[in-house]
C-alpha cells in the first residue's frame, strides 16, 4: 500500500498557532533558558574546576564530583535530544523518554558515588601555592554551598563589594555566592513546577475521566472527593507535614500535587461529559471497543486542550507555593531556593536589596512566563481565534 504522507497533526497545528504569538515565544524562551541553566548548573557554577593539571596530572574535579541528580538532569536532556531523531508519535516518544529517565535514575543512583567530604578551600590553596599548571574554572567559580570560610568571617556582602573576589550578585548571610545559588535553585523551581503539576494532572485525568464517563453515582462520589480536596489549605498542610516529617523537596512536590488535582479533575469531567454524547464516542462504544481505548484514545485527546491551559497556570502556582514556603523559612535547609533567599533579604538588621531583587525577579519572570504561555495556549487551542474560512 502506498504510504501517503500524513497531514499536519493537531499538536503541530497548536504549536504553530502558539509560536505565532510574541508573548508565547517570550515565555517559552525564558522557560527554555531556565531549563538549560538547570541542566548544566554544575558546569556553570562550581568551585571545583572543570579541568586542571596539578603536578603534571590532569583531572576534572567538577565531573568527578557530579552527583546522581546531576547525571539524571543531563541524562534526561541527552535522551530528549536522541529521541527527537526517533520517528513516531509524540506520546510514544514521551513514554520512551520517561522509561529512559527511570533507567538513567537507577544507573545514576546505583553508580555515582561522589566523595562526601568536600573541601572547597583546597583549590584556592592549590592556586595560591602555584602548583597548578593549567586551570579551567566554571563561569561562576563558586559552588552554592561554598561558604568561603578560607576568606575569614565573610557573611553578607553587596554585589561586587568584596575585595579580591567577584560576586556579581553579592553573597548571602553565610557567605555563599548568590549567583551560584540562584543557578542551582532553578532546578528546585522547575522540578517542583513540573512534577507537582504532573502528579496533579495524572490524578485529575483519572478521577475526572471516570466521573465524566460514568457520571451518576461515580460522578457524585468523585465530586464530593474534589470538594474535600478543594477545602484543604495546601500551605497549611505543607506546614504540618514539615513540622512532623522534616523538610524534603520531594514531599513538597507530592503534597502540592495531591492537593491541586481537583481543578484538573473538574476540567476533565466537564470535557468528558460533553464528549460522551458525541457521536464518535457512541460509535466507538457501538463498535465494542474496550473502555481504556474509549477513554484514553477517543475521548482524552479531544478534551486535552483546557487541561494544557490549566496546567501552565498550575506550574506557576506550584513555583509560588514553594517560594512562599521557603520564604517562611520552612523550605529546604541547606539547598538553595529562590524563596529562601528572599527570606534572607529581610532577616538581618538591614534590608539586603540584592537578595530581594534577583531571586524575586527570577520568581516573577518565571511565573509571568508560564502565565504568558498559558494565556497564549488558551488562544491557540480555541477554534474561534484561529483563522477561519478553512472549512
Amino acid at each position, binding site marked *: *500500500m*502506498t*504510504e*501517503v*504522507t*500524513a*497531514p499536519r497533526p*493537531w499538536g503541530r497545528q497548536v504549536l504553530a498557532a502558539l509560536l505565532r504569538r510574541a508573548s508565547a515565544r517570550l515565555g517559552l524562551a525564558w522557560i527554555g533558558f531556565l531549563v538549560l541553566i538547570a541542566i548544566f548548573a554544575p558546569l556553570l557554577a562550581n568551585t571545583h574546576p572543570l579541568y586542571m593539571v596539578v603536578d603534571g596530572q590532569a583531572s576534572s574535579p567538577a565531573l568527578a564530583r557530579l552527583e546522581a541528580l546531576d547525571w539524571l538532569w543531563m541524562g534526561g536532556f541527552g535522551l530528549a535530544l536522541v529521541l527527537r531523531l526517533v520517528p513516531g508519535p509524540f506520546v510514544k516518544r514521551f513514554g520512551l523518554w520517561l522509561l529512559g529517565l527511570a533507567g538513567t535514575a537507577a544507573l545514576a543512583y546505583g553508580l555515582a558515588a561522589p566523595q562526601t567530604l568536600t573541601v572547597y578551600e583546597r583549590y584556592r590553596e592549590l592556586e595560591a601555592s602555584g602548583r597548578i599548571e593549567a586551570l579551567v574554572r566554571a563561569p561562576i567559580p563558586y559552588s552554592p554551598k561554598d561558604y568561603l570560610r578560607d576568606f575569614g568571617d565573610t557573611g553578607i556582602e553587596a554585589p561586587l563589594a568584596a575585595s579580591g573576589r567577584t560576586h556579581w550578585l553579592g553573597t548571602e548571610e553565610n557567605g555563599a555566592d548568590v549567583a551560584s545559588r540562584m543557578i542551582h535553585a532553578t532546578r528546585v523551581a522547575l522540578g517542583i513546577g513540573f512534577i507537582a503539576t504532573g502528579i496533579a494532572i495524572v490524578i485529575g485525568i483519572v478521577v475526572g475521566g471516570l466521573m465524566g464517563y460514568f457520571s451518576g453515582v461515580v460522578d457524585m462520589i468523585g465530586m464530593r472527593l474534589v470538594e474535600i480536596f478543594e477545602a484543604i489549605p495546601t500551605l497549611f498542610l505543607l506546614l504540618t507535614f514539615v513540622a512532623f516529617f522534616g523538610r524534603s523537596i520531594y514531599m513538597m512536590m507530592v503534597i502540592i500535587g495531591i492537593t491541586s488535582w481537583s481543578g484538573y479533575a473538574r476540567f476533565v469531567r466537564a470535557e468528558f461529559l460533553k464528549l460522551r454524547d*458525541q*457521536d*464518535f464516542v*457512541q*460509535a*466507538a*462504544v*457501538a*463498535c*465494542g*471497543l*474496550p473502555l481504556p*481505548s474509549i477513554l484514553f*484514545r*477517543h475521548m482524552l*485527546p*479531544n478534551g486535552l486542550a483546557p487541561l494544557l491551559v490549566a496546567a501552565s497556570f498550575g506550574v506557576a502556582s506550584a513555583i509560588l507555593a514553594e517560594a512562599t514556603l521557603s520564604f517562611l523559612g520552612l523550605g529546604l535547609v541547606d539547598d538553595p531556593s529562590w524563596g529562601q533567599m528572599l527570606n534572607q533579604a529581610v532577616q538581618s538588621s538591614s534590608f539586603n536589596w540584592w537578595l530581594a531583587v534577583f531571586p524575586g525577579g527570577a520568581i516573577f519572570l518565571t511565573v509571568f512566563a508560564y502565565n504568558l504561555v498559558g494565556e497564549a495556549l488558551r488562544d491557540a487551542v480555541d477554534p474561534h481565534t484561529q*483563522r*477561519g*474560512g478553512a*472549512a
Partner: protein
Amino acid sequence: MAKLLEIDGLVTELGNGRDWVRAVAGVSLVVQRGETVCLVGESGSGKSVTALSVMGLLPRGRFRHPQGRIRLHAERADGTQEGGEALDLLGADAATLTRIRGARIGMIFQEPMTSLNPVMTIGEQLGEVLQLHRPELSDAARAARVVAALEEVRIPDAVQRAKEYPHRLSGGQRQRVMIAMALICEPALLIADEPTTALDVTVQAEILRLMRELQTRRGMGMLFITHDFGVVAQIADTVGVMQKGALVECGPVAAVLHAPQHPYTRSLIAALPEHLPRGARTPGGGDTLLALEDLAVHFPVRRGLLRRVVDHFRAVDGVSLEVRAGEVLALVGESGCGKTTLGRALLRLIEPTAGRVVLQGQDITRHSSRALRPLRRQMQVVFQDPGSSLNPRLPIVTTLVEPMRVHGIGRDDAERRARAAELLARVEMPPDSLWRYPHEFSGGQRQRLAIARALVLEPRFIVCDEVTSALDVSVQAGILKLLRRLVDEQRLGILFITHNIGVVAYLSDRVCVMQSGRVVEQGATDEVLQRPRHAYTQVLLAAVPRLEPGAAP
C-alpha cells in the same frame, strides 16, 4: 406591482483582509411588493450571504462589495406609499441602516432556539424593537401593540405569554414570536433565512401558512431562503436557483419547478428523493435479524431538594417491531417522539427500562457490557451529524482498523488496512482517504466514512439515525443510493430513522410511524404512504410540502 427591493449585479466577497473568497458573484433580482421571492440552493451557494448583504449584517471588516447595488424603494414610514427616491443600502451609513432594520426590513433566522434572548421576557424583546423604531408610542400603547402582534401570529393567551421567558415556548411558538418581532413595525420587506428548517413538518406547514397569510394581508415583499423545493412550491411566487454564488435560473415558480431550463436546476430537482428511480423490490422474505418486544425507555423526572423521582418521562413506551435481512425499515416521527432514543436503546447505548431486544434469536437485553462486546459486531450505527461522527484526532485508517483489531478480524494490521481500503472503495471513497483526518472531508464524504466504519465489522444490521438530514439533496441522493445498494447486494437489515417522508418513500420497504414514544402505524411503505389509517399519519403526510400540490409521494 411596484418594485420594493432591487439587487443589481451584487458581488460579495468574504475574507480576512488579505485573501478574499467570492461568496456572491453577480446576483440581480427584484422583489415586488406583495411578492415572495425564494432563493434556493445547496449549502455554500451564497443564498444566506445575499440576504445578509441586504441587511448589512455581515461581520465588520470581513466582507466587501466590489460591485453591485442594493436599492430599497419606499422608505416612508407608512410604507404603503411609493417613495420618490430609492435608498442605496450598500452605501448607507450605520445610522440609516439601524433605522431601516426592523422598521423597513424585518428578518427571521433559522434557529428559533437561539434567536431569542433567554434572559428577557418575550414582551420585553418585542417592546424593545418598538421602542427603538416608534419612540413616540406610550408604554401602554406599546404593550397593546406587543399583545396584538403576538395574537396576530396566533400565540394563544398572548397577554400571559408576553410576560414569560422564551424557554417556556416550543420551537414552533418561538418561531412565531420571531415572526411577530420581525413584523411588529410593519416592515415593507421580510427576509426569512430558512425559517422552517429546524421545525417539524406539521409545525412547518402551520408557519408557512401563517407567513403567507400575513404577507397577503400586509402586502409585504418577502425574500425567502430555503434549500427545500417542497417549501418553495408552497410559498414562492418567483424562485431563484443559486449555485456557487451565481443565480443560475430565476423565474415564476411553476416554470422553474416543472420546466427547469438550467442543467443545475434539473439535476437538483432530479436528486429529490421522491424523484429518484426506485428499483424493483423483492418483497422482504429474509429471516428476522432484530426484534423488539414491548421495548420501553423511561427517564426519571427528579424534583426538589432530594432529587426524588416524582415521575417518568416515557421516551419509548412499549414498542414492538422487527427488522429482517435485506430490508429497510423506516422509523418516522417528529422531533421528541422517541425515535432516536429507540435507536440507541436497541443498540444498548441507553439502558432499556422494560421489554426485550432480540438479536438473531438471542435476547441481549440483560447482557453485561462485556458479554455484549462480541455481539456488537453484528449491529452497527451511523449517526446524524457528520461533524461529530468521526474522531477528529484520529486518521481514518485508525478509526477503521481499531475495531477490526479488537474483534480479531484479519491476521495483522497490513491485512486490516487492505480490508479498510476495500471498504472505502465500496462506499465510493478514494483509497488515499485512509491517511487523512476527518476535517479534510465534506459532510457527505464523512457520512460515507461513517458508513464504512459501520461496515468494517461486517454487521448484519445497521441503525441509521437521520444520516442524511444534514446533507444537501444531491449528496443525500448519493448516500441513499449507496445504502440501498448495500441492502440489496449484501442482504443487510437497516433501521432507518428519519423525519423526511420523501426519503422514506425512496428507501424503505416498510414504515413504522412513531408518536410520543409509541408506534401508531406500521406496514409496507406504499400501503402506509398511500392509504394512511391512523389519524396522526394522515396529518403528518398532509403536512409534507410537495412539488405538486396534492400529488402522492
